[in-house]
């Protein structure tokens, strides 16, 4: 302290109260110089280890709880049992038979529902008559949870593939419609004005200005629709499943095989992750012009 005072501070007659916070940053400078960061490869490894820590601990605790008999394996089979169930499903060829069937249902429903939603969204977004015709009815219908439609669809379409497909279609139309419509309507009117100045026809304006600018929103719609398709798949496969992952689950349920049920649920989860990765890749490829923002 005495040293500080000798370095000329006292000449300016600063009242003693102002000298007090000499140790802290208050009123002084804070350090924003670059930190010395560890090599990127190593810090990435640390990040992975950190993220893997909690799941690993849970898995280990789960396995130990089963091994020492704290939980009954009929209620909660151990992770090792579930791995064995997977091996069984693959050995018997059940999983290989079920996956293409389930995926086929989801993809077909998404293709039909998504295309319908996209077409309706473009029609309502680009043409006033489309908005008048479709927007109000669709906004009303979208408030119905699609799961509530299942009993109705069974009455209408039976208990075979058609009912399953219709549930997935119903689930995917609305996210696609809403995001497409919002994307088209969200295009800056000033851009459209500029296009008309430079002699673009309505069709050229739609193709060269409105659609490319609305594409991010349309892809968000596709991502939501894909998630909805998976959810609808799970629900639809509860209806009289004779093939697909739903069939595996149903069988396992009747045979009291909770290990296989959990394995089936994990397959659904893996499908969800795969779809999300695929959508991100698609966005990355389709929107090269968007500045990449990554929040670490």
């Amino acid at each position, binding site marked *: 302290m005495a040293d500080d005072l000798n370095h000329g501070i006292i000449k300016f007659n600063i009242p003693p109260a102002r000298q007090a916070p000499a140790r802290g940053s208050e009123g002084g400078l804070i350090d924003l110089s670059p930190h010395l960061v560890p090599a990127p490869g190593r810090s990435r490894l640390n990040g992975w280890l950190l993220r893997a820590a909690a799941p690993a601990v849970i898995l280990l605790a789960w396995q130990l709880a089963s091994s020492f008999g704290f939980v009954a394996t009929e209620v909660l089979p151990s992770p090792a049992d579930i791995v064995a169930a997977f091996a069984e499903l693959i050995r018997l060829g059940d999983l290989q038979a079920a996956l293409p069937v389930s995926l086929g249902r989801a993809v077909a429903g998404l293709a039909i529902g998504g295309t319908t939603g996209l077409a309706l969204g473009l029609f309502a977004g680009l043409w006033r008559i489309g908005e008048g015709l479709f927007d109000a009815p669709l906004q009303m219908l979208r408030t119905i949870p699609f799961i509530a439609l299942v009993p109705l669809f069974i009455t209408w379409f039976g208990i075979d593939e058609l009912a399953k497909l219709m549930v997935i279609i119903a689930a995917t139309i609305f996210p696609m419609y809403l995001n497409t419509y919002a994307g088209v309507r969200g295009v800056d009117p000033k851009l459209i004005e500029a296009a008309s100045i*430079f002699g673009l026809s309505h069709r*050229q304006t739609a193709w060269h200005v409105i659609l490319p600018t609305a*594409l991010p929103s349309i892809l968000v719609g596709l991502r939501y629709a894909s998630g909805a398709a998976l959810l609808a798949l799970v629900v639809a496969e509860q209806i009289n499943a004779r093939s697909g992952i739903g069939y595996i689950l149903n069988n396992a349920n009747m045979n009291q095989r909770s290990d296989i049920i959990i394995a089936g649920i994990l397959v659904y989860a893996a499908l969800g992750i795969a779809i999300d990765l695929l959508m991100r890749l698609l966005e990355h490829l389709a929107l090269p012009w968007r500045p990449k923002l990554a929040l670490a």
Partner: protein
Amino acid sequence: MLSHDHAVELHGVSRVFAGRAVLDGFALTIRPAEFVAILGASGTGKTTLLRLLSGLDRADGGTVRVPRRRSVVFQEPRLVPAKRVWQNVVLGRRGAAARARAEAALTEVGLADQVNAWPKTLSGGEAQRVALARALVQQPDLLLLDEPFAALDALTRIRMHELVGQLWQRYRPAVVLVTHDVDEAILLADRVLVLSSGRISLDLSVDFPQPRIRSGRDFSDLRIRLLSELGVAVH
């Protein structure tokens, strides 16, 4: 069609918004290759006039005659973010010929190296030069500039003034520049109009030679006159 000695003919033009006549009995003629700057406070009808000239808006009465080939540079660049710079310059056209035209126009505004860039990676001045290149490829007989330099920093603005002056000398379109900046008007224009309450309250020729310097006697006299017409007293 248009007579040969006029690029713009407006007679008795009126435009009414919500019962208020923004333009009333408005008349203006502009010669081909004439550079006209329009000054005026906010709400005096500058923007309305420019929208009528561009064809984005229609008058409620009177005669509005403009060339078929018109271009506008707006205050904002108004580039399509999903299109590369050259595609924005020849918006709606494709192919090698269109690309060559875009490259030529971009070279003229000094952006030859940004042909393939995405608009969001450009600075404000660069984006506005792309907008200028987009206006030029139309080979306009009438170029409308709607405060195109207002959002740029002072140094970029000086460069843009030079660029617009050069391009006008080379291509000789009639130019209408709407601006708030008296100096900018005097630097660039042949003729300066002051608008107040939807009428031309002052119409002056700027006849001293280019390049004009702000410190010149003619310049400062004209500046004082225009500012006082705009209601700003300068001593």
